[in-house]
């Protein structure tokens, strides 16, 4: 904002000489940028540690001091007992939970943003509540439910819980996308004698699709990463976060760091790819 004003004043008053600036002045003018840079460094510190220690050859059980560069964790990725099984289970649960929550959530989002009906604000509140509830409360209440009804806990109960907490985030993401649509596009299609079904599948749905994709990625990462709620509903089932929690008590093998680094790289690649695709589309 300062730049704009400066440009304006420079344009209107070209005679004003630039005041000389010292390092103190530079610092004062860039306080915000410096604070932002510090924040970014803070955010990346642990990532740096995660990546670095995936190349470590720990001396003993605890991977907390960098000893020696090694590719062991990467070449012998599944070398830790149980890790890859837990990883596979987490990916499978994540995919199913994503599919289910995206279908349920997209339907709900359309209901809430395209219709006015009695109970709409109540429905909005119901969607908002899980996001405003601490995970430990949701986890323990599901545990109370399953224990009281004598339901054995395992993959099914984990899936039930994951679909539940992903649902709200899907609804909110898709709803935001629907709200940002230009209603004139649909009106134009209708004016050109497209019936409702055609309009929906040829106009509305493709436009909402990026929101659905974003919601899917979000749901998958929420499900894949969840420890607290999962722990309450897993009994002896071991998902990846539960494996890491267990490993944390005994000493974390560098392979866990390799998974962390891999997650970082893969999600970064997905985001960058997504941005390239959307930019291409805009240009086309």
């Amino acid at each position, binding site marked *: *904002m300062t730049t704009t004003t400066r440009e304006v004043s420079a344009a209107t008053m070209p005679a004003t000489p630039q005041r000389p600036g010292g390092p103190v002045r530079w610092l004062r003018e860039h306080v915000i940028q410096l604070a932002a840079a510090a924040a970014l460094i803070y955010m990346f510190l642990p990532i740096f540690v995660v990546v670095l220690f995936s190349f470590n050859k720990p001396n003993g059980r605890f991977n907390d001091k960098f000893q020696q560069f090694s590719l062991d964790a990467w070449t012998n990725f599944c070398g830790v007992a149980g890790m890859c099984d837990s990883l596979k289970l987490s990916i499978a649960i994540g995919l199913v939970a994503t599919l289910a929550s995206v279908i349920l959530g997209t339907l709900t989002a359309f209901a809430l943003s395209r219709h006015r009906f009695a109970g709409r604000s109540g429905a909005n509140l119901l969607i908002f509540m899980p996001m405003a509830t601490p995970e430990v409360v949701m986890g323990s209440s599901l545990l*109370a*439910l399953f224990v009281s009804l004598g339901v054995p806990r395992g993959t099914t109960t984990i899936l039930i819980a994951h679909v539940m907490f992903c*649902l709200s985030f899907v609804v909110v993401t898709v709803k935001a996308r629907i709200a940002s649509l230009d209603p004139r596009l649909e009106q134009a299609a209708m004016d050109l004698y497209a019936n409702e079904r055609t309009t929906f599948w040829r106009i509305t749905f493709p436009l909402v699709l990026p929101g659905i994709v974003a919601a899917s990625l979000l749901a998958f990462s929420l499900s894949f990463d969840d420890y607290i709620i999962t722990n309450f509903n897993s009994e002896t089932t071991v998902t990846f976060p539960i494996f890491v929690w267990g490993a944390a008590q005994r000493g974390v093998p560098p392979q866990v760091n390799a*998974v*962390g680094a891999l997650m970082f790289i893969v999600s970064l690649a997905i985001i960058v790819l997504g941005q390239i695709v959307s930019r291409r589309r805009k240009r086309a």
Partner: protein
Amino acid sequence: MSAGAALAEAADKGNPAPDVNNGSGRRKWAPYVLLLPGAIWLGAFFIVPMIFLLAQSTQTGTFEQGYEQTLRFANYTDALSEYWPQFVRSFVYAGIATLLCLLIAYPLAYCIAFKSGKWKGALLVLVIAPFFTSFLIRTLAWQTLLADNSWITKTLNWLHVTDVTRFLGLTEGDRLLNTPLSVITGLTYNFLPFMVLPIYAALDRMDQRLVEAAQDLYSSPWKSFRKVTWPLSLPGVVAGTLLTFIPATGDYINAQLLGTPAYRMIGNVIDSQFFKILDYPTAAALSFTLMATILVLVGLYVRRAGTEELV
């Protein structure tokens, strides 16, 4: 994480739904048909479990012999008189973490919204990216960063920062790990994106010309920030503080991995009551009290902040 972005957009006072149903008989039911599957799921696995939790909180008995409903409300007073320190600690730690998040996130969000130019997209990705690694792995990385022999600990000791934090009761001796400070650091770190994204969304929506107008009217940069930018970013700040404070209060991963039993939060207590002590009624009572306290606090805060329509 994009969770914050999503909620930020939710915090944007939702456009009123255009009424596409023109009252014709069949379509009157359309919204309910669309809504039903999701609503049933949330009803069955969010609302109903809450009722079971509430029911369990007044039961008596043992894990081995089963619990019986005796409407023993003293479970609540018993649990609270024993665990009030952990309760208070949870709210204090979460409060400090939320404040720190705001201090760190605001300049960052401001910079991305107003000072980044063509790098805006790239910067946003950078802000989200660290949080795609697993929550637990990130927290474990802080264990390494704050360990006794780490360069951070050594530097802070050398700069005598630890003297100040020790005076404030945040650290012990020369250590950073296993102190309140490390728990708060972890909480602040893990919930930071939930603060950055809503504030960014609010700032990004802001009409830049308002600030220019203020400066044209000879307002100083500080004053135009205080009178124009800050109030306009408030919806984002409110959404961000809620999104940070609520999960931070219930979190026990940070307290477990970066703290010691002396600095347990209420989440740790609930977890161990369920899984180690196997005292389900006490755990349920604590869990329900946490939920109720948060709802009351959030209600008061939102009313005070004046942004009532968050959904």
